[in-house]
């Protein structure tokens, strides 16, 4: 029988998620008719809906699957990712959210053009929407490929066992692209709000069930370091160790040789941050300065990058006013903060209960721990002979679907919006009608969806969370300085803003791309052969660990570089500060109740706004 090849629970939960998503998208599409509905959901989304939708869009495969996988593979250092993903919003709230909303524009390119009165700057800003967007879609596609390979792992495909990774990528990419093309922004606001709550349910419920069977978060962590022959334990802790041993043996399975040992896994400056130094044959405490540098660069990338993600920023325009934008951010921080407590628990439990994943690579590696971990309950047996493990695994698979579907569709909308609204509507054919633009939205969605799917096929050997971190690093060096300084410094000129954003972003992009091609060249599969010409880079990294860190995590030098360039070039070209900069600043900062926006619009009526 065909069905015997699948786990019924997992398949049905996943299929249900896809169907509900598509159904809601289609239903909302019936209701979105105007161009404003397509691009910013009519600007009238309530705080609760909008906060859920932003959270739903933000919690991607990286958060749902990648963080757990990375905590399992690298331990403590990986915790910086979820914390900074959540905390980055604070920066957004403190410096950018309110002013940006008051300024009122459809997209970031709109802001760039409006603030500097320059259509050229719009083009540069659009390029970055696409750069960051494509970088961010790759890990989502990896999540899709991994999940589908897991669901269909027992199927036979042209004589080979298991669904090939690219098939899953193409399948999911196609479905979501279709969904966006018919629904636009209004469609996905509703879907994403629903998907947030699905993800929250799917990540938390299995954790509580697993904890009730195998012991709490703290107990699972307590096992780490309690069994391994840790050097230099005092007599007192030695005694408590002896009593902990029998309990911990039942709590954890033996680690394979590939897994990092407890001491480095549990403590800061472990395998993730000290990898470059280790590759350069630096041992012991000498690796710690390198690891500290890596940690700081990672923190800067994610905290600043969150404030510069184009697909998140576009959502602030769906708030009715600046106060609502602030309240929305507060709720987003609570919603995602609660969520981010859970994925690391999967990582910790995975290390104890499913260490076999350390030996896998690609779709069989630690990135699938969230999907596979609940299955261990099946072996334990449950009441009534029901396979609770499969049911829970089905729920986490549904959550994974929600994760990559929501983020991918959000990215697709912002990239498609950039193409249809900015490139087509403003640059190529400014005289096009609203109906023509909506038609173009659909074609652009198909185009960007296709390219993103193609790119996704290449990245199987890379870790999901790692790739997302890189997209953040690019955003941190381009959009974040642009927004931050444009909002708070009147002296910024077009030339300064463009130079800083372009060079900062391009350097960050090149640095992370270099790291990726050298990592891909190490892969044992087809990607290794494709990227083989880059293999000598790894030899170079081994001799220059510092350069390797600065390329893998470039934020620590690209963000200051971008900001410095902006200020320097602006000072040099201060004659070209926009003449009405004071009015622009008023619109950005004055409370909306004062109604200064009207003055601004009146003043700009003559110049085609």
């Amino acid at each position, binding site marked *: 029988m065909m069905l015997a090849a699948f786990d019924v629970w997992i398949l049905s939960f996943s299929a249900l998620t896809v169907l509900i998503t598509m159904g809601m998208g289609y239903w909302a599409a019936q209701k979105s008719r105007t161009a404003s509905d397509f691009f910013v959901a009519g600007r009238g989304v309530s705080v609760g809906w909008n906060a859920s939708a932003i959270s739903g869009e933000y919690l991607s495969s990286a958060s749902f699957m990648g963080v757990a996988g990375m905590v399992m593979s690298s331990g*403590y250092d990986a915790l910086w990712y979820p914390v900074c993903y959540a905390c980055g919003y604070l920066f957004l709230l403190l410096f950018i959210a309110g002013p940006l909303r008051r300024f009122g524009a459809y997209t970031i390119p709109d802001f760039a053009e409006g603030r500097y009165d320059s259509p050229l700057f719009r083009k540069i800003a659009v390029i970055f929407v696409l750069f960051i967007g494509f970088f961010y879609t790759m890990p989502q596609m990896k999540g899709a490929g991994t999940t589908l390979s897991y669901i269909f792992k027992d199927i036979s495909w042209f004589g080979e066992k298991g669904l090939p990774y690219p098939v899953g990528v193409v399948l999911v990419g196609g479905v979501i692209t279709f969904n966006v093309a018919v629904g636009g922004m209004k469609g996905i606001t509703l879907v994403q709000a629903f998907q947030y709550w699905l993800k929250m349910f799917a990540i938390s419920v299995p954790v509580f069930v697993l904890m009730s069977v195998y012991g709490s978060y703290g107990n*699972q962590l307590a096992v780490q370091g309690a069994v391994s022959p840790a050097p230099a334990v005092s007599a007192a802790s030695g005694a408590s160790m002896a009593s902990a041993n029998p309990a911990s043996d039942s709590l954890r399975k033996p680690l394979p040789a590939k897994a990092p040992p407890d001491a480095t896994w549990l*403590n800061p400056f472990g395998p993730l941050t000290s990898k470059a130094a280790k590759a350069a044959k630096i041992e012991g405490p000498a690796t710690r300065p390198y690891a500290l540098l890596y940690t700081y660069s990672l923190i800067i990338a994610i905290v600043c990058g969150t404030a510069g993600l184009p697909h998140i920023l576009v959502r602030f325009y769906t708030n009715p006013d600046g106060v609502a934008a602030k309240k929305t951010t507060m709720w987003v*921080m609570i919603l995602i903060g609660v969520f981010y407590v859970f994925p690391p628990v999967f990582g910790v439990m995975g290390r104890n209960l499913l260490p076999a994943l350390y030996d896998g690579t690609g779709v069989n590696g630690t990135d699938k721990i969230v999907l596979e971990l609940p299955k261990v309950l099946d072996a334990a047996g449950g009441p009534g002979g029901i396979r609770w493990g499969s049911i829970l695994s089905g729920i986490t698979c549904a959550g994974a679907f929600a994760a990559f579907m929501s983020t991918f569709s959000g990215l697709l909308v912002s990239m498609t919006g950039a193409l249809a609204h900015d490139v087509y509507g403003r640059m190529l054919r400014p005289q096009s009608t609203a109906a023509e633009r909506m038609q173009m939205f659909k074609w652009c969605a198909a185009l960007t969806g296709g390219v993103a799917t193609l790119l996704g096929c290449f990245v199987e050997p890379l870790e999901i969370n790692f790739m997302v971190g890189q997209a953040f690093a690019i955003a941190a060096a381009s959009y974040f300085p642009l927004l931050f300084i444009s909002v708070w410094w009147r002296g910024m000129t077009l030339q300064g803003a463009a130079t800083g954003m372009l060079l900062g972003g391009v350097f960050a992009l090149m640095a992370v791309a270099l790291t990726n091609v050298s990592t891909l060249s190490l892969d044992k599969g087809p990607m290794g052969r494709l990227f083989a010409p880059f293999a000598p880079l790894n030899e170079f990294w081994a001799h220059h660990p510092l350069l390797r860190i600065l390329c893998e995590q470039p934020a620590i030098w690209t963000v200051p570089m971008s900001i410095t360039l902006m200020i320097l070039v602006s000072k040099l070209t201060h004659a070209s500060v926009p003449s009405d900069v004071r009015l622009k600043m008023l619109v950005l900062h004055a409370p909306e109740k004062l109604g200064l926006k009207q003055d601004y619009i009146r003043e700009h009526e003559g110049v085609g706004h």
Partner: protein
Amino acid sequence: MLRDMATPESDPQEHTHSESFLRSLMRRQLKLSITCALSFLIALLGLPLLNYFMPDAMSGRVGGFTLSWLILGILFFPLVWGIAWVFIRRSIALEELEVDEVNARKR
């Protein structure tokens, strides 16, 4: 822009377009934002330093967690919520104050 300097400050309509109004507006808001950002950055950038210079204390156990894991994995989130909540309350109050000040001039 010249008209701002030409007209006396007492004209309420012109006041909102004056240099001094914008300056005080931005300065007050930026001061609030920076105060909140600093309290957050001290915690965020201080934790790696604590890990670096006091590894033994940070790897001490609290209910199974190491101290450092407990702070980063759980306690960090409520801290950030607290800062965000204070900021939002103060910044909304600040906006209302600014609106009141402008309206008071009109009367």
